[in-house]
């Protein structure tokens, strides 16, 4: 389901920022005036008109971020997160819109549950098709099997066919359960040494290849959730080159960390799909840079603190990420020169919006003022107490402030 924050109806002048909107080809030191929540003027010296002036010298002003993959834990586990805490966390991280995944309790797969929520939803199909057309009419942005992958190729084919009726694309969690069963971390030298049951990369890439083949055969678009393996990126690039309309997302943790980090046995590093090897991380960064992967998704998956204060093996999968996503990526990818800032901004805003057919936030006269102001020189220490999310399991990699 889509939670879009309405642009605040403020009157505002943002002065002196480096204004960057890759979609508009905009990268200039200009002022931006906002009248009643709408961008009214972009110029080197705007009329203040008595508006509040934000001195943004040295800061970057960009279109607000869109997170296509968040677990709000609502309905069912509001102790872990609810709509208010989740959207506060999103706003703190610079996001103006998030898509909430439906693997909740109860699963969001009927209009009754959907109606009890707010305005729109996505649906979860494990073993049978859900009433996708009705849900789409009620506002579902897309249909996802996140958390409960579709094991049957036949069912996946039917879902792809039916997605044509709804006009919404399928967003797929690719995992072959008979290969990943019991797996605690990426299968490789680190899991061999630590003794963990492995979750091999082929458990993901096999399903990526299956679903891309089905999408090609049916001529339907699809979106691949949280890719982690280099084999998956290669399969995606090959399918895109053949003309398959496939989009994909990647998480900040898979872009910044590898399975080596799991040696600490910190349960906050346990996630699905798992952190993988350096070659995988490098392939994900390459895929993001050259556009095969068009979106960054936090896969923000909060857990109650006591659930992560247990031995690694007993801990649930999932980390938080809404409030640290940009900072972590800026520190790990932009500063070392691995990814241009414009590309990062695109993959966090217009990229995910395009993948889901949403209007991308933009910096243009007449557009709603969905904006984020970034201080690339500030550094901050990630502290659990200052988070807005109820989940306590943040990665420790973020150092720059959004």
């Amino acid at each position, binding site marked *: 389901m889509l939670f879009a924050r309405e642009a605040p109806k403020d009157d505002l002048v943002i002065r002196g920022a480096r204004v960057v909107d890759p979609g508009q080809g905009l990268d200039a030191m200009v002022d931006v005036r906002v009248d009643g929540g709408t961008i009214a003027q972009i110029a080197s010296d705007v009329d203040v008109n008595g508006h509040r002036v934000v001195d943004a010298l040295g800061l970057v002003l960009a279109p607000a971020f869109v997170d296509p993959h968040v677990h709000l834990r609502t309905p069912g586990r509001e102790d872990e997160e609810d709509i208010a805490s989740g959207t506060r966390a999103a706003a703190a991280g610079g996001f103006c819109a998030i898509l909430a995944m439906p693997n909740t309790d109860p699963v969001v797969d009927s209009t009754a549950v959907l109606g009890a929520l707010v305005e729109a939803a996505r649906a979860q199909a494990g073993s049978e098709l859900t009433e996708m057309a009705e849900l789409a009419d009620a506002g579902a942005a897309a249909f996802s099997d996140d958390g409960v992958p579709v094991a049957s190729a036949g069912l996946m084919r039917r879902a792809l066919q039916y997605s044509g009726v709804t006009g919404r694309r399928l967003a797929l969690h690719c995992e072959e359960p008979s290969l990943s069963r019991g797996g605690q971390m990426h299968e490789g030298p680190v899991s*061999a040494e630590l003794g963990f049951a492995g979750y091999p990369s082929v458990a993901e890439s096999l399903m990526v290849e299956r679903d891309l083949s089905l999408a090609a055969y049916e001529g339907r678009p699809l979106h691949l959730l949280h890719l982690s393996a280099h084999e998956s990126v290669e399969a995606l690039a090959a399918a895109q080159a053949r003309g398959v309309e496939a989009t994909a997302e990647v998480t900040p943790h898979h872009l910044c960390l590898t399975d080596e980090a799991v040696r600490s046995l910190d349960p906050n590093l346990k996630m699905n799909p798992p952190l993988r090897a350096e070659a995988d991380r490098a392939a994900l960064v390459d895929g993001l840079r050259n556009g095969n992967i068009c979106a960054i998704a936090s896969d923000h998956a909060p857990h109650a603190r006591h659930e992560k204060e247990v*031995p690694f093996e007993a801990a649930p999968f999932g980390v938080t990420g809404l409030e640290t996503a940009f900072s972590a990526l800026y520190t790990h990818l932009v500063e070392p020169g691995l990814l241009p800032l414009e590309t990062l901004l695109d993959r966090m805003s217009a990229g995910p919006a395009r993948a889901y057919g949403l209007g991308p936030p933009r910096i243009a006269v007449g557009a709603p003022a969905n904006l984020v102001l970034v201080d690339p020189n500030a550094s901050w220490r990630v502290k659990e107490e200052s988070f807005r999310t109820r989940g306590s399991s943040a990665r420790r990699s973020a150092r720059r402030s959004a």
Partner: protein
Amino acid sequence: MGEIKLMREELLPPAPPPPRRHLISIGDLTRHDVERLLSTARAFERSLDREMKKLPTLRGRTVVNLFYESSTRTSSSFELAAKRLSADTMSIKAAGSAVDKGESLKDTALTIGAYDPDVIVIRHPQIGAPHVVAANTSAHVVNAGDGKHQHPTQALLDLYTIEGELDRIEGLHVAIVGDVLHSRVARSTTQALVLMGARVTLVGPPALLPRGIEALGCETSTDIGAIAAADVVYVLRMQRERMEEGANYVPSLREYSARWGVTPERVRPDQKVMHPGPMNRGVEIDGRVADAAHSLIETQVRAGLVTRMAVLYDLLTNGPVGVQTAVVEEVA
């Protein structure tokens, strides 16, 4: 002038306490640490020959054994090791404790920690459990086995046994046979042997040799013939209780025994044979091999006692300085 200097020293902030020492993984030890522990264990072994076997070394110290998995030799040898050093001991088994009532490991650790024990020895079925105890108490933590991860005192007693029999570890070739995938013993002992300069070959069915294990610095083979060249054949327990239904690691135990069982035909009398116990006679090891003169299986049990005495002593006496002379004096 001397007085001024003294005042200055008093004004300095107190030095931070040295980090608490634990024994959680062989990976935490240097070669020098291992050598020190083995020589301490040898000094204790000499004390066992005396009529009065108890040493006053750890009088007034408390050692808690916290066992979440069944164990005979490890729990009994830790308890006896602590008693031989005059420490007070307390053993807590998961069955019959608050663990039965759903208490979390963190809360159990906080409860035990409230008694200020000097050492907590923990065995737990989950990887990372000793870290949880270390993070929530101020005791030294000894890992007596955490899931498939590590069993460092087993590795030390294995090294002690090998060195006692063959007078060296460096340059020896050890073949470890069986279910490596599910074995914390295989992981810790391989790491320890490689650290000490031995050559290790892991032998077993393909699905029971974890992918990437060669990164530990060992070789792998699926051919039982690979044990022929080894000085020591180390047989692992075929962990039937860890074989999930339908996992199909091997077609059957019968086929496993036929292909990878250690039988008299597959070992030479000049090869030493070891096993961490408990054995499945007729599955991974033929009874005739287990009972043969070149089997070191009982020596391993005896080594377990003195090695664990050495570990407790080492943790509670803050390391290497003068360890050996102190022990020898007490023994004398």
